[in-house]
């Protein structure tokens, strides 16, 4: 057994180093190339953003004020805030609902109901964002005006709901609701897949200890699914941060940094700002918009790194060992 290849393959390969089969080589090369391709694409995008954004990043503030949209940091800050704030609101609404639906499909619903429900959720992911934008602007925004007034009147002491209520309903909260509906299917289907993979062994262990179904889910399913849920939320967050069309159509955004979600003074998001201004931008303005894109790219990167860190923090308890 010291040299298995010599014994098994015989004289043909004697002296040669580890002969590989053609299929192995081809597949190895293809997989390797795909892996490298991702890195190349990512590097290309980052390079483009850096190179095209640099003129705005390093321009004289005075020049930016006259030829661009204004001094870069103070110009991009409200949009960066709007991006993160809208996405946060969206996730706060979508995640509990998504996990609830996923658990219902995986552990509560009878099989006859679970499967169609799963399909419907997946179908929701296939709706184009422009349709969500139309729905949000034409139907949702007018419809929630009454609710917003009520929230403002009755829960106005909570800073979130304070301020002067918007007359159009096209506030950041409405945009966040639309975003929540858009990220719901991603988070739901991924979580459902993870919940279904929770080991039966551990579910039975919990049940045999006299756990009710909910206790079993808390003991055996949710801890197992935690990294998967975080990954699903991150994918949803990625979509919420980068979503352009729906936000552009729903939100009447400006440049105010405010946590009040019902007023007409809303920060716009980076993606929507780029989409709104790009057609008429030229010269330094184009560079400035691309630099804003770079900021969005960085926000996404940081968010993903935080998620990785959360997942890895309790790796020894993941059951992988």
């Amino acid at each position: 057994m010291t040299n298995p290849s010599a014994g098994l393959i015989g004289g043909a390969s004697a002296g040669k180093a580890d002969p590989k089969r053609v299929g192995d080589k081809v597949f190895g090369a293809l997989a390797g190339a795909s892996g490298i391709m991702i890195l190349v694409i990512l590097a290309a995008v980052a390079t483009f953003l850096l190179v095209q954004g640099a003129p705005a990043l390093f321009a004289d503030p005075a020049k930016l004020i006259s030829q661009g949209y204004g001094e870069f940091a103070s110009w991009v800050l409200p949009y960066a805030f709007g991006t993160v704030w809208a996405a946060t609101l969206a996730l706060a609404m979508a995640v509990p609902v998504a996990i609830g639906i996923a658990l219902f499909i995986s552990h509560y619903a009878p099989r006859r109901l679970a499967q169609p429900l799963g399909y419907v959720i997946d179908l929701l992911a296939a709706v184009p964002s422009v349709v969500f934008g139309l729905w949000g602007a034409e139907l949702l925004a007018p419809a929630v005006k009454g609710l917003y007034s009520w929230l403002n009147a009755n829960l106005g002491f909570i800073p979130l709901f304070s301020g002067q209520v918007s007359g159009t309903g096209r506030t950041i909260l409405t945009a966040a609701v639309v975003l929540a509906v858009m990220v719901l299917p991603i988070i739901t289907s991924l979580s459902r897949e993870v919940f279904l993979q929770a080991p039966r062994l551990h579910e039975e262990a919990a049940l045999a200890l006299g756990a009710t179904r909910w206790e079993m889910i808390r003991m055996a399913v949710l801890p197992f699914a935690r990294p998967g849920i975080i990954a699903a939320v991150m994918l949803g967050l990625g979509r919420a941060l980068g979503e352009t069309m729906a936000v552009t159509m729903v939100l009447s955004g400006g440049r105010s940094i405010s946590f009040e979600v019902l007023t007409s003074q809303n920060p716009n998001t980076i993606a929507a700002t780029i989409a709104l201004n790009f057609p008429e931008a030229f010269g330094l303005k184009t560079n400035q918009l691309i630099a804003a894109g770079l900021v969005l790219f960085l926000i996404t990167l940081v968010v993903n790194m935080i998620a990785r860190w959360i997942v890895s923090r309790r790796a020894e308890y993941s059951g992988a060992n």
Partner: protein
Amino acid sequence: MSKRIEITDLNVYYGSFRAVEDVTMTIAPKSVTAFIGPSGCGKSTFLRTLNRMHEVIPGARVEGEVLLDGENLYGPGVDPVRVRRQVGMVFQRPNPFPTMSIKENVLAGINLNNRRMPSSAKDELAEHALRGANLWEEVKNRMNLPGSGLSGGQQQRLCIARAIAMEPEVLLMDEPCSALDPISTLAIEDLMNELKEKYTIVIVTHNMQQAARVSDVTAFFNIAGTGAPGRLIESGPTDKIFSAPDVKATEDYISGRFG
């Protein structure tokens, strides 16, 4: 703390398929009862009906009676969750919760119904259960490390500790040693001998030497063929089943002529 189990005319169905037919037997308290028989003869299925764990499988249902000291487990209004708190179970493969520490694993069942127990009492209980499972000396310095870091045999004893921490009336063991090496198996068998001082123990095993070593009573299950329901062929004192069984099939199985 241990109870007698009386089973009368028990039938188990998976949908329309009858898996176990007409089992009637009595399991004595403070003893080890072993179920033996070829694969697919329904002994594991039958074991699961003793704490209603078969209900986890969709379409599984039971006809007949299982009395735990006179109380019918299948009576109207009996909550399976309560049944399982009295009748503990240890599975074929060790299944400590991977996201919990050793201590959390032992206390998993306790934390379900007795959350307000002071932590000193919990520590005491965890130590008591782990001593009961002969695991305390090996883990007392690593109580806060994950349970999945233990060896297979230690994990199985951790699962036994988790079950006995609940102070059940009955302990069901579904082939508890089938994934373990001989030394760990011996440790579990020794443990069973100690545990039967306090609990009613029912074990399913494929290993006939194990049944002969650990059990006081042996029950032999068999099937007539594929698709036929499993039946209890005979049960009796282990000495008698292994030396002079009444039924020829039992003798054939035990002497290795089939199965």
